[in-house]
């Protein structure tokens, strides 16, 4: 295939993927705990012939902190700082999320919308109310006796969080590249803190995403013009051969 044509076509394909990722980010801009992704590209080179276009390396999640907002959920939690909640599914598999929309289940566990339980915490059945302090300790009040701590929520951190496997943009799985989860106790001066009655919004900004869409669209058009120019040259060259 003609090199100029291939390079321009690979650029169109790259911008198409870029647009898909940005559109997915935009669609999830209102999802609690959602983390946006960016497409990564690398130059495609042929030995001894220089660059011949671009190649998609896949999407990479960016874990920039989302805005914290007050919420009305019964057990809403937000992480102010790095780290993830560890949630466990029905098969005992562990996942990691910053979506803190939990609710108290009949068995005393705190469960999210996916029916996964928050790891390491169980609220006694006779507890009337429960709140979470910044250091993760869960304080419950009872009909009889004073309120006291019934457990402590701990967070998970990773050596390379950007290498976590994204399940749905808000739920992640550990990989060999991300390293094993390291347990962190929130509340220290320079560490993460928990905010009870708050949720972390998506870290996608609609205005930024719209700007990215426009940029990708223009880049796609520029590459399409490259395809047209290469095609025109081929047409001229063909006419030249005909005489």
């Amino acid at each position, binding site marked *: 295939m003609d090199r100029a044509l291939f390079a321009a076509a690979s650029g169109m394909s790259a911008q198409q993927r*870029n647009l898909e990722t940005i559109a997915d980010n935009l669609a999830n801009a209102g999802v609690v705990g959602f983390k946006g992704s960016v497409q990564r590209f690398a130059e495609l080179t042929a030995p001894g012939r220089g*660059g011949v276009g671009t190649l998609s390396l896949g999407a990479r999640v960016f874990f920039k902190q989302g805005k914290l907002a007050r919420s009305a959920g019964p057990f809403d939690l937000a992480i102010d700082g790095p780290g993830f909640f560890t949630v466990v599914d029905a098969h005992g598999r562990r996942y990691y999320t910053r979506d803190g929309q939990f609710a108290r289940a009949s068995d005393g566990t705190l469960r999210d919308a996916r029916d996964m339980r928050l790891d390491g915490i169980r609220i006694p059945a006779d507890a009337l109310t429960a709140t979470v302090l910044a250091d993760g300790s869960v304080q419950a009040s009872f009909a009889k006796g004073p309120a006291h701590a019934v457990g402590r929520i701990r967070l998970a951190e990773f050596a390379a969080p950007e290498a976590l496997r994204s399940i749905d943009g808000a739920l992640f799985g550990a990989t060999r590249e991300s390293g094993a989860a390291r347990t962190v106790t929130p509340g220290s001066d320079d560490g993460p803190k928990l905010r009870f009655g708050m949720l972390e919004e998506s870290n996608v900004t609609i205005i930024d995403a719209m700007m990215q869409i426009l940029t990708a669209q223009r880049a796609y058009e520029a590459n399409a013009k490259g395809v047209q120019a290469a095609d025109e040259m081929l047409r001229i060259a063909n006419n030249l051969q005909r005489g």
Partner: protein
Amino acid sequence: MVAARTRLEIATDNLANLSTEGFRRVAARGALTGTGVSIERSRGPATAPGTPSGVDAIAEMIDVLAAERSFESAQKAVTAIDQSRQKSAEAARIQ
């Protein structure tokens, strides 16, 4: 025509890498040789990791158009040379 073609290849490669982080733009430089024009490639300065490529889409589009027009001009020159040779051959046949 080959030089214009190479120039287009370089411009389209730069355009394709508009979103490639750390990409070093390739500049095309024409140089006169004894038999025409040759194009030399030179890489621009490296951009820091995590920053966008150093490609200016407008400049590359101008390069695409310029390469296309150069190619057309060269094609016209080839056609003109071909026609003048054809006429010379016809004149020689008449004589």
